[in-house]
């Protein structure tokens, strides 16, 4: 697959630094896991993180810190916790296997979604969005930021055509009308940011793109 749309360098650097909001973090993680070019960029920023570590003014550890860590060396490490039980769709990228994904529900004709439980505090919510071929999304603008990573199928809008692995960024400056391409259903991971309190019930926030 040839990926032509990538996250911005700012998002990639934030991902490398570990400072993104949980929803943004997931969207970039999914893209990067399948995009060698972006992984290289992330690695470069991690390299800068390494230099920062070398250059930073050390701050003395508390008395007894070393002994406290030594005391734990022989304890067997906890296995990385991952949640694979909730999940049955084989076509999803591996990273998503570690997330808890809710049941599918219809949101509009030809469109269904599955919410993804985010592991940390997040201004955004993340979900899988599945659209039938040929679905016209209603014309919409964003009241927050919307990050989309295509997992399967494709859609097109003024910004071009977005196929598997492609990453789309939308914000309030955009006004677009995506159309799901013919052929197969389009499955996307979407992370949307917006302040619920400021926007009222969150249906309003994502509506009319998705009715929840």
């Amino acid at each position: 697959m040839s990926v032509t749309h990538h996250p911005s360098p700012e998002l990639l650097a934030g991902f490398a630094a570990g400072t993104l909001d949980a929803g943004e973090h997931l969207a970039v993680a999914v893209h990067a896991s399948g995009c060698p070019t972006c992984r290289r960029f992330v690695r470069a920023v991690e390299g800068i993180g390494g230099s920062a570590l070398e250059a930073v003014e050390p701050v003395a550890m508390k008395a007894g810190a070393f002994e406290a860590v030594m005391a734990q060396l022989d304890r067997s490490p906890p296995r990385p916790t991952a949640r694979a039980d909730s999940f049955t769709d084989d076509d999803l990228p591996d990273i998503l296997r570690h997330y808890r994904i809710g049941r599918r529900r219809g949101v509009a004709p030809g469109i269904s979604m599955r919410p993804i439980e985010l592991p940390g505090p997040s201004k955004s919510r993340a979900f899988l969005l599945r659209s039938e071929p040929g679905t016209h999304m209603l014309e919409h603008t964003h009241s927050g930021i919307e990050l989309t990573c295509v997992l399967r199928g494709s859609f097109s809008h003024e910004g071009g055509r977005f196929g598997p692995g492609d990453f789309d960024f939308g914000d309030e400056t955009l006004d677009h009308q995506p159309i799901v391409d013919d052929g197969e259903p389009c499955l996307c991971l979407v992370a949307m940011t917006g302040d619920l309190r400021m926007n009222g019930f969150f249906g309003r926030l994502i509506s009319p793109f998705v009715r929840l």
Partner: protein
Amino acid sequence: MEWAKLIGRVAEGDREAFRRLFEHFAPRVKGLMQKAGASSGDAEEIAQETLLAVWRKAAQFDPVSAGASAWIFTIARNMRIDAVRRAARTSAVDHDAELDYLVDPAEPADDAMARNDEADRVARALSSLSEQQSMAIRLSFIEERPHPEIADVLGIPLGTVKSRIRLAMNRLRALLDETK
């Protein structure tokens, strides 16, 4: 001193090597975390957890694809994400950040030569950045300093900070792409 070699020895259970790594890196992880806004207590905890993870994961360290300090940086970063997630206790999901940085297994397997090649490209790109450019990226993303401080450190007008950062990022991206 070769940190990568020490990590190799730690992988074999050498506690003296571990002590030296701890003494060098724990205070630096703590310093970097504090710089990026963590409280002294949180920074201390992340530094301890990071070094403990260095002990446990030492065998996974691949000196071909990353430098020792970059590797330890990624561990510290993951520990910090985990700490933020734990503190928020937003849900029952207990999820290690480490898992988010894995490569999709559907990607072509990368052998040692490919990894070496990749690491070279990254290292070349980083060394082609000017001091100011890598500093701009570091201050903005790794240390998360506010723009007035970045202007101060770099000795540039506040109004130009944003464009400097963007330029540095675009240059890094171009450097990484053009070697294709």
